[in-house]
């Protein structure tokens, strides 16, 4: 019995690798989206992703090896997954900070959860105080829903390295696989968050972090080390909660909980089996 009342891999763009993990001529097998993929960078630099060949003799009735729509952007390789095989109905943006700011490290976790839990988490205002060192309940500054994305801005003082800093955090989702997190304030910070369904039980969560700072190696290493330590600590308790929680279709909510149900309704469209007009598919 599944832990979740919906499919593991809704329609979306998903990052399957960081660009620098794919060297030309060195194909890589990647277990993701309930199957096994092979990603290969050709001599022209373009990445091609196909279903992997089964590790056994082919059988009659084996499904044909699919070729996946690929978009390489922001230092990552994305594939478009649609359970019905429809072509991409929306695009993911190039984030300018990914090229103009200083990259300060990346982190990844494999956990027993569902990507929708991570998506919902972004608007769960009440959890920031207990799990992310906000010193008071987060205030909802803005929440905008669009066809294939939403953006939420929350504000509250947050303790970072022992200092309570006024923090305004904006998370912008593009489909269910990519979120761009931006922290405004004295130390601007950008986090590219990608969610990847691996199988019916597991997901891979990746952070790629950038700060607005001069490109000096020493500065970069110092910030990278500090941030890796802080961010790993910041999400450790949350990972434990996600791995053990139960998904309640009808949660008991209180005032101040944030637009969790609105995000759930927004997510529904990515599980839709019928072609949607909005996808530009006739």
């Amino acid at each position, binding site marked *: 019995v599944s832990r979740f009342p919906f499919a593991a891999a809704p329609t979306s763009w998903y990052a399957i690798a960081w660009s620098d993990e794919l060297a030309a001529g060195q194909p890589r097998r990647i277990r993701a989206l309930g199957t096994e993929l092979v990603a290969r960078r050709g001599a022209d630099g373009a990445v091609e992703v196909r279903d992997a060949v089964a590790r056994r003799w082919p059988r009659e009735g084996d499904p044909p090896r699919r070729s996946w729509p690929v978009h390489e952007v922001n230092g990552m390789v994305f594939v478009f997954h649609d359970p019905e095989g429809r072509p991409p109905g929306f695009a993911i943006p190039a984030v300018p900070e990914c090229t103009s700011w200083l990259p300060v490290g990346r982190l990844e976790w494999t956990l027993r959860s569902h990507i929708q839990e991570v998506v919902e988490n972004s608007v769960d205002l009440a*959890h920031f105080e*207990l799990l992310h060192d906000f010193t008071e*309940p987060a205030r909802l500054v803005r929440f905008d829903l669009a066809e294939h994305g939403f953006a939420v801005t929350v504000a509250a003082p947050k303790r970072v390295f022992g200092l309570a800093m006024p923090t305004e955090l904006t998370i912008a989702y593009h489909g269910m696989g990519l979120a761009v997190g931006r922290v405004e304030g004295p130390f601007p910070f950008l986090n590219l968050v990608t969610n990847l369904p691996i199988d019916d039980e597991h997901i891979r969560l990746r952070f790629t972090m950038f700060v607005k700072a001069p490109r000096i190696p020493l500065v970069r290493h110092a910030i990278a080390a500090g941030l890796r330590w802080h961010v790993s600590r910041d999400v450790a308790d949350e990972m434990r909660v996600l791995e*053990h*929680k139960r998904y*309640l*279709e009808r949660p008991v909510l209180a005032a101040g909980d944030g637009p969790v149900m609105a995000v759930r309704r927004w997510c529904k469209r990515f599980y839709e089996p019928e072609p949607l007009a909005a996808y530009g598919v006739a």
Partner: protein
Amino acid sequence: MTERRVDDPRYPAYTSGWFQVAWSRELAPGGMKSLTCFGEELVLFRGASGQASVVDAHCPHLGAHLGVGGTVDGDCITCPFHGWQFDGSGACTRVPYAKKVPPKARLFSWPVVERDGMIFVWRDRARRGPDRPLPAIDGYRADAWSAWSTYELTLKARPLDILENAVDSPHFEHVHGNGPTRPEILRTGPVLELRQKTSARLLGVSIDAALHYQLIEPGFHYLRVEGLPTGTALVMSSLIPVDEQRVVNRLSIALARRGRGRVAGALARVLGMAIARQMIATYEQDRPIWENKVFHAQPVLAAGDGPIPLLRQWYASFGTGDRAATAIARATRSTGALS
């Protein structure tokens, strides 16, 4: 591995009744323990005032497991996700960021009785309250017996597999190498009482003993081991189904107290441990059989077999038809709210 179980609705894996989920000393004030019993996830905690409570593990808010990162604060348990607090009755007492606690914010709290150093919950398939008090152990008074020596083991079996063992006379000879034995049935009805002669090996010496069983509930039975030179030993045996495949067996062993001194106490403890070891060795002989057998609802029995049908009838009287109950429990869980 393939599923060997054939479900017979007369003999459910989980019945109604009282089940020993822990020993008292496992839980200090402010402590908590995650439990999986009857296929459900639960949290046992003890508040500052000493009261032990068992509640459903998942917060009705957004479903976090209270036992994973949660804390006990005063007499309440605090959720690790958003800080909601619940008291031992399951009522939500505080939502840290909201002035009003939503009326539906409630955890199911399992009826708990703590007695004789053990913590019991009442389990009913429809989550009704107990229809009977927790039965007492005949003639047991804590001051007349030594402290419990305890042992816990998890078996890939169902409670009935283990209960049947008590009346399965020929296996004592064949599996355990004891002399031939016949059970003497002393009482039938809600409590099944029988005596079985056996030879027990204690500290390397073979002793003719009698096992006097009282089967009280599917969740617990006890036996007196009579005829030991040290006096009677009392063995409380609790069976707690983890899920439909596994069962936890908790053994608590006490010896009739002969003196009040420290030496008598220490001697009783050593002998208690020796009996526990002997019982564990016996269990280990049974384990491969229990873990690989199939359950025949209509077994082929021969003359000389113990009163297996009698035992099954007794077991079946405690509750049937678990499927409907599982569906109810699932529905309750997925909404997070209790009507």
